[in-house]
């Protein structure tokens, strides 16, 4: 049973407030992902949980015990670093066994545990190698092995996949997910990659400039973002934001095009808005216009095929927008085509506050 409770956490250094009023509760066995743009404070938060950074204000409690002044070694947490932080002058076996030796565990037990761990991660044959003789993926596995051999109560990951190439990142992401399923431990994971966040998290905590913008399950944040920032951060390709004005039952865009108001939108007073449309909700127009949809004729400017799908760019209301269509529907730039915009899935944003209404 490992829970983490962070209350009103503050971090300030050199006069800069890196974290402000952070409240977060992590339940036993949960996989929580801290995600956000560079400089939002996610790594700082993780390091404060590990004990590598001082706490300016507020408290961090692990399993009900406040750990503010506890040294990292006493917190019983394991951490995987972005640059793996393997000890270059030690073999894989010594790297993984290091923590166990530091706690004076008998050698026989160390051997068994290191063996089990390396076999679990598929690096059983690499015991006597040095980090410089390993590939990126192997080093990553050793770093993870070093964390799990300790049987710690809390696992912290600081952007562990950033240094890997795309293919390897995909593979390792699946392995980490599997690891969580197998071990069932509480894990807190930091990344700037929203795909990692979406695929790995039980719960996402989206940070920006030192505060929590929104937290919830991946689907919650994806389908019900509460601000333009959250809406634009999750989802690939990025959501389209088109400014418009509400006149009657329609929204008028720059250039005169009209789109129907989403049926769920009730705010009568709002005039100037920003429409948030995901590329997945724009498709090639069929014969009929469904209720809440609109057909618009556009000229495609850019075609980026990604396999079975294609990301096409076109101007909408003066904004370069992206739609995700079947790769065979649009072949080349310059094509004139009619697109179906599904306004029932659109979100409406207030331009002043940038909040969703």
């Amino acid at each position, binding site marked *: 049973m490992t829970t983490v409770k962070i209350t009103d956490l503050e971090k300030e250094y050199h006069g800069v407030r890196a974290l402000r009023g952070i409240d977060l509760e992590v339940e036993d066995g949960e996989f929580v992902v801290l995600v956000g743009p560079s400089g939002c404070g996610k790594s700082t938060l993780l390091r404060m949980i590990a004990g590598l950074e001082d706490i300016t204000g507020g408290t961090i409690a692990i399993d009900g015990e406040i750990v503010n002044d506890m040294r990292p070694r006493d917190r019983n947490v394991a951490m995987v*670093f972005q640059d793996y932080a393997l000890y270059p002058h030690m073999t894989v076996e010594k790297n993984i066994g290091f923590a166990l030796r530091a706690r004076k565990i008998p050698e026989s037990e160390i051997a068994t545990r290191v063996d089990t761990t390396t076999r679990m991660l598929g690096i059983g044959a690499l015991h006597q190698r040095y980090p410089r003789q390993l590939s990126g993926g192997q080093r990553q596995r050793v770093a993870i092995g070093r964390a799990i051999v300790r049987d710690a109560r809390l696992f912290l990951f600081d952007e562990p996949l950033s240094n890997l190439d795309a293919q390897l990142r995909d593979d390792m992401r699946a392995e980490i997910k599997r690891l969580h399923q197998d071990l069932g431990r509480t894990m807190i994971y930091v990344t700037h990659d929203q795909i990692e966040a979406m695929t790995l998290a039980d719960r996402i905590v989206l940070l920006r400039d030192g505060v929590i913008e929104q937290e919830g399950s991946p689907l919650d944040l994806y389908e019900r973002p509460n601000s333009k920032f959250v809406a634009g951060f999750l989802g690939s390709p990025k959501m389209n934001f088109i400014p418009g004005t509400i006149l009657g039952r329609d929204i008028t865009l720059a250039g005169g095009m009209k789109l129907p108001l989403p049926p769920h939108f009730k705010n009568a007073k709002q005039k100037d808005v920003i429409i948030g449309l995901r590329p997945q909700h724009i498709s090639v127009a069929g014969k009929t216009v469904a209720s809440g949809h609109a057909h618009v004729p556009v000229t495609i400017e850019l075609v980026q095929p990604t396999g079975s799908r294609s990301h096409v760019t076109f101007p909408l209301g003066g904004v370069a927008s992206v739609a995700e269509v079947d790769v065979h529907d649009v072949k080349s730039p310059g094509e004139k085509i009619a697109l179906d915009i599904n306004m029932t899935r659109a979100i409406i944003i207030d331009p002043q506050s940038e909040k969703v209404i």
Partner: protein
Amino acid sequence: MAMTSMRPHRRRAPIGRIVFIGIYLLFVLVPLYWMFITSIKPSDDYLAVPPVWFPKAPTLVHYTAALFAYRGLQGIINSLIISLSATVLSAFLGTLMAYSLARFNTGGKHLAFWVLSQRFLPPVAIVLPIFLIYRMFGLHDTYIGMIIAYTVFTLPVSVWMMFAYFRGIPKSMEEAALVDGCSRWLSFRKIALPLAIPGIVAAAIFAFIACWTEFFFALILTSRYTFTLPTVFRAFLGFQGAQYGEASALAIVSLVPSIVLGTLVQKHLVRGLTLGAVRG
């Protein structure tokens, strides 16, 4: 794209580089060679015209004179004791201080540079006060006195080199050790220190060479008991004229430690010097 650009063209022999290196080698090797043959020439050949390129009757008499009559051997022994002790102290203390500066930002923004700036001080400015203080405390012409002086004298450079070196080692390995179960001291001893060895070796070599060749402080602070090797050379410039043979002999002998050290550790030297510089 013309076809001719595909053909690999012959590299011109780097004449300029060969000439330049050749001249430089001449510059370095000729004096060394001259010094060597002077040390084995009979005295008459020193300033003979035409110059004697290799003596017909080489002799070792200058070596024995330099080492024993002029007490060059005692000077070598004293220098070894003092330089080695000061080097070890300087490397040890310098490493500890540099670690503190690099990891804990001790003294804020300015302490590190202030330590280095001690080297800017001309020795002339402080040698007299130090002489007086040493006399007062009975440290004049003692091993301890010289070791202290040399340690302090080489510490700024040791600290600065190790400081740059530690800054080049990513903190994350020591942090991983902390999370894994080490205290600050253990993480230093088991992780940072082993990785710092090349830097320590480089710093130690610099310190040793500085101590081995130091003349000014040795002149003022030593006398008949702890005189160092460089001070022995003074005796060769007498009223009767210079003892070129003895001076050359002693000079050749004093080259030996530097060459031996340099050869043994040249691999570490380059690594230690550049590692700190490349990382930000």
